């Protein structure tokens, strides 16, 4: 193996350290404490795990953190009312509604009800649009793509990607499309590829930066990777692992890691790559929101 392994856990820990110290300073200088509210509807075990870890991380950062757990049969109107309350709650800088929501609730409607200036997930169409028009000083960038960009900058040791070809595989609203805007803003030449792309392996081979976000386990093979490329694997897929015992499973990315690591210059592992960055950037976005409220400059990552 020749590639530099991009350690997402380590970079995420650095981000959290920056958030922690900036939070202490913010509280000391302005007496504004960043506040985050997480709302979960129902008892999906995976969602509960995510919500708990977000709450824990927020507390670790020194935030005011509240979690609202609502029963599965909560009506859409009640959930929207709760979001409105949080929009008007001066102590809350970031609102996060854990997805997925039960079928009887319109997810889009709920997300669009969150005040854009508290939408730390960056899913509100005003934030999505501002990312498109380059108004990032007042927008929130979705956490997974934002974290991917931080890893990329660390791996390449620079933030200006002029002259580099980036290929993003996957055109989802929460990863692929924001990555197009972020990579363009960093001066890369960007191609967005997807399941209908004609010669996907050939196209991937042109990439100096390859971002995989399709949600298909190990779809991108080592021989699709240009030698020396930086590979960011956003996929998290659970596959059976009979070698670990009956009924066991393991996590893999969208990239066939072992082969790709032989060819690439730098690569993110799964788990331990992009994954830990997502929650770190959520904390970073919440701090940014609080800094905007306090009228002070937010740290960069």
């Amino acid at each position, binding site marked *: 193996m020749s590639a530099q392994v991009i350690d997402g856990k380590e970079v995420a820990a650095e981000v959290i350290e920056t958030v922690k110290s900036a939070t202490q300073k913010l509280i000391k200088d302005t007496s504004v404490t960043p506040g985050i509210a997480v709302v979960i509807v129902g008892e999906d075990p995976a969602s509960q795990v995510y919500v708990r870890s977000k709450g824990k991380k927020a507390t670790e950062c020194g935030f005011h953190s509240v979690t609202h757990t609502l029963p599965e049969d909560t009506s859409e109107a009640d959930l929207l009312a709760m979001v409105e309350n949080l929009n008007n709650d001066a102590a809350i800088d970031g609102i996060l509604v854990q997805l997925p929501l039960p079928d009887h609730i319109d997810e889009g409607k709920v997300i669009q009800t969150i005040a854009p200036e508290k939408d730390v997930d960056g899913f509100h169409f005003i*934030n999505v649009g501002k990312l498109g028009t380059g108004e990032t000083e007042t927008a929130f960038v979705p956490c997974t793509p934002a974290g991917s960009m931080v890893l990329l900058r660390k791996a390449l040791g620079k933030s200006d990607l002029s*002259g580099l070809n980036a290929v993003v595989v996957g055109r989802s609203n929460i990863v692929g499309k924001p990555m197009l805007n972020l990579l*363009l803003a960093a001066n*890369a*030449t960007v*191609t967005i590829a997807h399941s209908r792309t004609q010669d996907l392996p050939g196209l991937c081979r042109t990439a100096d930066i390859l971002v995989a976000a399709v949600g298909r386990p190990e779809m991108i093979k080592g021989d699709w990777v240009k030698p020396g490329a930086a590979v960011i694997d956003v996929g998290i897929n659970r596959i059976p692992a009979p070698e670990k015992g009956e009924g066991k499973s393991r996590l893999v990315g969208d990239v066939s890691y072992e082969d790709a690591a032989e060819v690439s210059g730098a690569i993110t592992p799964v788990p331990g790559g992009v994954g830990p960055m997502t929650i770190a950037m959520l904390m970073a976005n919440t701090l940014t929101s609080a800094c905007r409220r306090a009228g002070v400059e937010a740290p960069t990552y």
Partner: protein
Amino acid sequence: MDPRYIDGRSVSARILAETKAGFEALNGASGRLVSISIGDVEEIAVYIRNQARGAEKAGIPFDDQYWPAELTQDECKARIVEMNDDPSVIGIILQRPVPDHINVRSLQSAIHPLKDVEGMNPASIGNIVYNDLALTPCTAAASVELIKETGLELKGLEVVMIGHSEIVGKPAAFMLMAEGATVTVCHHMTRSVAAHSRRADAVLVAVGIPNFLKADMVKPGAAVIDIGINQITDESGETRIVGDVDTEAVVEVASWVTPVPGGVGPVTVSILMRNALTAQKRQIAAGWIAG
């Protein structure tokens, strides 16, 4: 016309006729389309004239307002907010450029998304990213319309967009992506534009440089959409309008080329009118005006 050229004027005429029929089905336009020019706008007078003509063909009253350059940002914003609330205004066009003391982004954001016929409000751009293609930036939408005019299937089509402006390049990329194309966005920091454009089934150019796209940058049989509008002075001292494509040479390689003038420009105007119809429908659906 040489069949290798895509005739933007006939596409525009068709869209305007469809739009007119659309308005007739709603018992006519509910109000007027307002064009706002702030300060000295001599250089864009021709665009405003073309929009007025397009509006007439589509059956929409066109109100071209000229605001004094001395107006402050807040005064401009207040006037726009008033129009947002005025049911006799279907849509608002903010002509650019604006004087230096005016923040154009902030004014565009002040136009309500239901009246944003130019598709410039961040909320409108956000909707495009989310594949809601209702009120799209007109030039980007016109470019997509012209690719469709060739009959090429957009699903799986290799498209290269040269230029990454917020007004054209980026929204066009998202719209083409929504249609299933594989899209590459190139710009002035791209190492080799030709290496990308030569692989494309369709190339769109919006860089503002005359003769930028040469024949050797185009794959034989591709469609070429020329979004550039540049004024040049030729050897005889005459000024004329050219695009970003070396059209005479490229037409020998490509299967389709949009001419300048007479390509993207007229279609852009017709899309603006189609957006006005969409805006009226959305205002009816939102209960702002009677259906």
